[in-house]
């Protein structure tokens, strides 16, 4: 198991194994990105839908409808991906969560609310929306990237957390 989690907010000790943290990984980035793009493309071609995760999840919070089935199916596939990854013989890449529980809760709340208010998240705006040339998605992606970079700057370098 390469996954590590430090609930106290301390950076966990790195065990041996594939450590790519802060390391540039261009090949897996392009390959994985192409897989993400391919699923967005296939979802349009087959199901006629945008593969925006917050939209797919958010739609499930409404009363059940004819849309419920495919939403549950898509999210089930997403959740089972690590199982399939291991089943295909891969050893899971590192997943390191440094944030404390209260911070995770606050972050989740902001991400959920913000994604719905802003009509999309990294996948819906960043991949699908810009891929379609949507000006809304371009502006949304520029905004959340800039704000996220600024937030990390403040949290890591200004307040020194």
């Amino acid at each position: 198991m390469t996954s590590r989690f430090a609930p106290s907010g301390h950076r966990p000790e790195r065990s041996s194994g594939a450590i790519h943290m802060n390391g540039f990984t261009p090949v897996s980035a392009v390959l994985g990105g192409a897989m993400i793009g391919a699923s967005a493309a296939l979802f349009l071609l087959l199901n006629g839908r945008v593969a925006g995760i917050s939209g797919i999840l958010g739609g499930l919070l409404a009363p059940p409808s004819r849309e419920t089935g495919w939403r549950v199916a898509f999210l089930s596939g997403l959740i089972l991906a690590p199982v399939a990854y291991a089943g295909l013989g891969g050893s899971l890449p590192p997943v390191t969560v440094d944030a404390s529980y209260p911070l995770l809760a606050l972050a989740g709340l902001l991400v959920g609310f913000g994604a719905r208010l802003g009509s999309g998240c990294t996948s819906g705006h960043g991949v699908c929306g810009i891929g379609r040339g949507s000006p809304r998605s371009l502006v949304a992606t520029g905004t959340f990237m800039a704000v996220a970079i600024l937030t990390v700057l403040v949290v890591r370098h200004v307040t020194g957390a």
Partner: protein
Amino acid sequence: MAKNASAFAIGLLFGLGLLVSGMADPAKVLAFLDVTGRWDPSLALVMASALVVSAIGYRVARRRRRPLLAPRLEIPTRRDLDPRLIAGAAVFGIGWALAGLCPGPALTILTVVPAPAATFVAAMVAGMLLFRLVPPAASKPAAHQGADA
């Protein structure tokens, strides 16, 4: 049925892509956002690569009469910029940067780091439910229907 099977397989591919790309690792996401620290540009390549492939898919999909498993394309049509879009994206950006998690990766790592991922996902669902209390935008009839993603 075929529609659901396809959605499942595509969700699986999406999750595998997140794992392979490194996007499912919050530490790597934060290293990408940390431009003044030890910057890891990998995720820029993830987005560029995903964009190129999805843009090709969109062009092909638009040229076809209809999707293979659905009667029509259901894609957002709004093009106007409104305060909600910007405010929502800004709030999203803060949350994304606090933990290095956005919706797709959070769901994908539920079985890998169950406790922290479930904490984030539960709060994220709460945030989405909270949004349902926000009154619909006035004078924009398609505001809620036309969700982009």
